[in-house]
């Protein structure tokens, strides 16, 4: 859990004391308002993607539809409805981007011919299934899961 918070808030600075203070505050905050914290999301990829980790800048560029090819495969980005709390949590905490910025990036991309846009799925179960069944598929889930054709993509520099 502690590593989790380091990963989520590592971008705020590397000062250990500042981070420790932040973690403590969040710890207390979470104890007081347990419903306010959405589970930590993980990036999942189809097993055609062979690498295990990517820098956050690249993951952000993938979900902004700017990086479109990885390990020789055209990427297909799967997302939940932008209003879904899992999506907003993923956008803010994992990518470090506000959901409205992500939607603006998608619209810019779709209507300038740069990409085909993300594929919006209805549930995490569908996300799981579609990523598993799509070569070059990439998405996110609120809980790590074990499945033979899906793998978790770590964010570089934020895991022990």
């Amino acid at each position: 859990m502690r590593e989790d918070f380091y990963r989520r808030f590592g971008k705020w600075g590397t000062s250990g004391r500042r981070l420790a203070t932040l973690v403590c505050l969040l710890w207390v905050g979470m104890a007081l308002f347990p419903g306010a914290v959405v589970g930590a999301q993980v990036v999942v990829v189809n097993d055609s993607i062979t690498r295990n980790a990517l820098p956050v800048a690249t993951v952000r560029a993938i979900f902004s539809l700017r990086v479109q090819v990885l390990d020789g495969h055209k990427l297909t980005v799967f997302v939940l409805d932008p209003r879904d709390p899992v999506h907003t949590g993923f956008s803010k905490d994992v990518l470090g981007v506000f959901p409205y910025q992500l939607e603006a990036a998608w619209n810019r991309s779709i209507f300038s011919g740069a990409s085909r846009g993300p594929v919006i799925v209805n549930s995490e179960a569908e996300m799981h299934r579609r990523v598993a069944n799509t070569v070059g598929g990439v998405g996110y889930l609120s809980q790590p899961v074990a499945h033979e054709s899906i793998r978790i993509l770590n964010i570089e520099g934020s895991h022990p």
Partner: protein
Amino acid sequence: MTGRRKVVPWFIVFVAMVCSWPLQAADRPLNIHGFVSQGYLSSTDNNYYGDSTQGSFDLTELGVNVFHAPMPSLSLAAQVVSRRAGALYDGDPRVDYAFLDYRLLSSLDGYGGFRLGRVKIPIGFHNETRDVAATRPGILLPQSIYVEGLGIRDFYIGVDGLAAYGEWFLARSTLQLDVGLAVPTTLQDETQAAFLRTVSAPGDLRLTSGQNLRLLYEQDGGRLRLAATYSRVRTEYRPAAQDFLLRGLAPVDALVLSAEWNWEDFSLMAEAVHRRIRRSGFIPSVPDAGRYEQGYYIQGTYRLGNGWEAFLRYDTHWNDRTDRAGHRQSMESLAPESLAPQAPHRFYQHQWTLGTGWRITPQWLLRAEWHHVHGTALTPLADNPVFDEAGGKARWDLFALQASFTF
């Protein structure tokens, strides 16, 4: 405009909408997206897109695009747009873009590639998707930067040529570079009419050369965005055998600086332009002229929650930085031989805009905005023939509503 032409864009959108849902659902390789928007404008004194003083629905934007990637590094994309906006833009469908995109480089440090065909030119933050209501910061774009009637709108909406792009990922930021090169082409009739201020010129207005360069810096995933754009456009009027105009040249050079700060509930955006416009020829015995236009806008947008947002914008423009009140330019236009005497308010435009938007779903957006305007320099001449008789009102108000749908 004939009835048949009016029907065509609606038909395209209808077919696309019918086709797109199963395509999206099936996640097939050919992808279709599009947009539809309808505006309503009501104004005091001056018209903006149709007879808005009486209430006007003359702002309709439709578009459909397709995207296909036959190989990981190669894609094909095309978009058709119909834009009806007052007397000048009658809604004839046009190819907005149609290009081949090849990614030469794709690595963890960045990527780069080029596009060949009719490509969109990034100028500032909003130019590439300027006709898509949902991507704009309001119903009407800040006209100081995204001007409509300069004779370079063709360049602004898309050029036939080559565009190269690249992005580098740095530790906390990214740097994007876009370069666009236009091949010579004849400008569209409506651009020609807007620029020459007459629909009866028998010759051709040609884009002889056009280049664009934009550098975009984004920090912390776009919390801070900074951009600088330089565009250079050269146009030439080639008179017909029997013509009342002479050969004329009208070079335009523009520098646009842009900045945006994004917080969770609030965004602040500002852009400024410095534009050099010269003219030689066109009219017998009129000396060559040059001037510097300037303008900027600043907009604060507050997100209220549940899809609601409100914004306040100040947008300002001067036709000539040495004559900001327009008196000298007006006096010159009142000379006895002048065909189009202009009031001073034709040479500047300053406006406050208060707007609100409600994103009912990610696809539906409703907007309302009120503009308090001083000046008419960026107000469509085609909707206000009285401007060429030194008419029009300096202070006026414009109210606009718009519904837009994207798919």
